[in-house]
């Protein structure tokens, strides 16, 4: 996993919140949390909107099986989080696999 400073250097692009795209990537998956469904692909969460899909901020509690490339580890109050594109994740063991759950920004 690359460091936060390296992420800045290589300037991994993210799609800004609120942007609307005509269709979601073919490799997107459906995830859910807080009673809502989202399309998810590489660290970006989408919901259907007029004329396409809008990039949205996910609520806490969504689980994903792998982190987007470029996610960085940030330690806050002795807890290691992962952050990418303004979305924060906490790793957990779900059975035998490590999965990542969206959490509120722990830096507040």
């Amino acid at each position, binding site marked *: 996993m690359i460091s936060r400073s390296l992420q800045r250097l290589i300037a991994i692009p993210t799609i800004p919140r609120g942007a609307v795209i005509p*269709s979601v990537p073919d490799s997107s998956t459906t995830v*859910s949390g807080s009673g809502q469904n989202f399309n998810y692909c590489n660290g970006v969460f989408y919901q259907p909107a007029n004329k396409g899909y809008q990039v949205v901020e996910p609520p806490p509690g969504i*689980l994903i099986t792998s982190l987007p490339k470029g996610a960085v580890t940030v330690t806050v109050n002795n807890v290691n989080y992962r952050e990418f594109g303004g979305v924060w994740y906490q790793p957990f063991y779900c059975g035998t696999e490590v999965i990542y759950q969206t959490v509120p920004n722990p830096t507040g």
Partner: protein
Amino acid sequence: MTKRRSYLASLVVTLTFMTVPVLSDQNQSSARSPSELQAMSILKSMSEYLAHAGRFSVTIRDGYDVVQESGQKIEFGELRLVTVSRPDRLRIEVKRSDGQKGLVTFDGKDITIYTANDNIYATTSRQGTLDQAIKYAVDDLKIRMPLALMLLSTLPSELDNLGVSADYLEKTTITDAPCDHLAVRTTGGVDFQVWVAQGDEPLPRRIVITYQNETGQPQFWADLSKWNLSPNVSDALFAFTPLDGAERIQFLALAGSAATTATLKKEGNK
């Protein structure tokens, strides 16, 4: 994208503690053929031999089908080195076909799972017997543990609870030891075949499980080798000592309520 894991949950459940109506011996005995009587006798010998073993180690090479949405079956596999020391010690080293290496340990006090590739682990306190720890790990922590049933000291009664009926198929010598080949059905839609070594050590050498009620009827198979009924075991073998820099995280099952409200839909479509 190829699915790897969606089938695993059912694999775990059906291999461990599936609860089905129990068929009483009295009802079955009158209708049993000589083939079934022979098979059930061998199955009983195997299960009691395993259940009464104070300790053992075995190497398991297994594979399992993952049925894709297209219907195509893809097999993934793993190598497991299992060491059991009753009443309260377990170590399972895992090397998956994708290269990921892991470890599950129980030392009588803590259950730990470790993923070497990421140097990450989770530990939870759990005092008790190995049987209790295995059931807790599988049922509550959802740790995948194929053939967990085989590790329980209650294996004979667990097989009874599956409502098994069995047939003797053949004696074979193409295995590494001469084996009796049995075909077993359960009342829960899970069939399995087992090759049991002949002689003084009636240990399973090969197991094939078929999930009749799952889409595509996927199979799980396992070759069991290097059985050792008196392995050298020390407390250090079962205790987990994290490496430098290892990251400790929580089990999702033990996390707060926010985690439990979310659902995970792997490989869903847009």
